[in-house]
């Protein structure tokens, strides 16, 4: 509920700061963020602007039309923004970690808003790991990563029944190479809309 009331502010912040590109401080404490969603949302707003724009290609800045249409346009822009944020479907993790990175929060918040407003839609969270470490531990670690995302979404208004979790451990690498860059791409959770 609290989150809903903050939505306009978030949107404003997003559009306002979208190009400023500010490096966020890395709190690393996922649980604390989840427990205090306001701050999490705020963080996501700040950080998402940067990483989202760079990694996934930020959509073109919506042109501001006539003054009378400004409000409507702003709303449309916000929606477009949201949709663009939802384009981000893969979320990355550090080695042997399952805490959500700060830059993922904006996008996750957008996914959460969409799912909350569309209770019929369902998602599958696929947890993945890089090839390092043991297979079965990685299966468990992949599940924990997916559940970490799941928790974030639930806290942000998504119903548990909308979310399914599966862990593939290190079985389905995004990049089959055996190097650091491949491993970075393989430590991930993928959101699949059904």
């Amino acid at each position, binding site marked *: 509920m609290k989150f809903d009331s903050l939505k306009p502010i978030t949107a404003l912040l997003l559009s306002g700061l979208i190009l400023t590109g500010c490096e966020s401080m890395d709190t690393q404490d996922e649980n604390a963020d989840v427990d205090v969603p306001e701050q999490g949302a705020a963080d996501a707003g700040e950080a998402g602007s940067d990483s989202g724009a760079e990694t996934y290609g930020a959509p073109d800045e919506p042109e501001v039309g006539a003054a009378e249409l400004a409000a409507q346009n702003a709303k449309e822009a916000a929606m477009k923004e949201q949709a663009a944020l939802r384009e981000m479907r893969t979320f990355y993790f550090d080695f*042997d970690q399952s805490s959500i990175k700060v830059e993922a929060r904006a996008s996750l918040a957008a996914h959460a808003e969409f799912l909350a407003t569309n209770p019929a839609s369902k998602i599958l969270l696929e947890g993945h790991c890089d*090839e*390092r*470490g*043991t*297979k*079965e*531990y990685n*299966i*468990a*670690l992949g*599940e*924990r990563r997916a*559940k970490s995302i799941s928790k974030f979404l639930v806290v942000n208004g998504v119903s548990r029944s909308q979310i399914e*979790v*599966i*862990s*593939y*451990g290190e*079985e*389905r690498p995004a990049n*089959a190479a*055996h190097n650091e860059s491949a491993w970075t791409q393989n430590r991930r959770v993928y959101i699949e809309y059904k």
Partner: protein
Amino acid sequence: MKLKFIFLSLFLFVQSVQAELYIEIREGSDSALPIAIVPFANKSGSAVPYDVSRIIANDLQRSGDFDALSTSKMLSLPEQYDQIHFRDWRLLGQKYVLIGQLKYSAYTKKYEISYELIDVLTQQRVLGEVLSSGSKGLRKLAHKISDAVYEEITGVRGVFSTKIAYITLKQLTKNKQEYRLFVSDADGQNAHMIFKSHEPMLSPSWSNDGQHLAYVSFHTGRPAIYIQHVKSSHQRKVTSFKGLNSAPMWSPDDASLVMTLSKDGNAEIYTYDLATNALNRLTNHYGIDTEASWSPNGKEVVFTSDRSGRPQVYRMNIKDKVPERLTFVGKYNARPRFSKDGESLYYVHQSNGGFHIAAIDMKTSEQQVLTSTSLDESPSLSPNGRMIMYSTLRGNSSVLAVVSVDGGAKYFLPSDSGDVREPAWSPFLN
């Protein structure tokens, strides 16, 4: 005076006993025991489908305990005892010579193999047998001879007639792959696929009677634990709870499996009674608990837990369920397996950024890293406790490798293509 005399003689006697030179030897040769496996004489009149003596030589060589002499270095190829020039073999530094003959009976359609193991230094025959087999059984027969020779000389039962199970992964197209579960001879030959799926398959584990394999398959889209009878290929689903169904391991009496389930929230370890389907939860922690393995006496399990923040190896008595941390060296120690005597553990250990197989002595907590290959995983102990098979990255794909428990012998198993992973060494099979 008489007493003095007696004392004197006693003293002299003691002196003469002490005077005997004593030499203590606590070190042995760095090389393995030299043995000459002379090519068996083919008296069958036609080509033999398997080179029996070569299979034996390869077996013994791979054990790491023997160094089989290359055929090209042999000065003669005796077929029977009276053809052996002992001086030659002694000059070649050989301790034992194995000779044999192969005959074929058109009537029984069977091969008859006679062999003799001879001690070069005493010139005595220490082993000899006549065995028969059809042409298809020749490989098995060769392994049987290897076992007999190995046990005669080392006093330890050979594992050449045992099997291994493993999983291969083949990338069919960019987005399509195939997992296959194989059972083969311990040398990797004679492989039979017993199950395949486009979805992941993991964690094969042999029942202690050598009849069944338990494993995890995603072929329904969700992970589930299955048991499959090896010979009949009959498959039975054991668990398919919501969340993880992972890391099954047979109890020593084959009555239950220990496994990892996340049906109660996160990865926890349970025992599953195969007769009653009853579950018994062993761990209760928000951290990951998985990769459990039974102690030889069935009273304890060892497992991986990251309850300390990093994956480490823990031990737990299945009755009192109190976890005890065992590994403290390194940030990553996982997937423990007990040694056959229950006195050591073998597990995956991260050091200097790489993952290797390590051993820890349960009494002294002394750790020894056994491998130096990269991304080493899934250690599985041979039933005689002498060798560890594991998977490792070689080039761009995963292959199976073997290292002796003392870190001595090392070799790779041949692989056709794709990834070969998660080896599981069978128990002794009859």
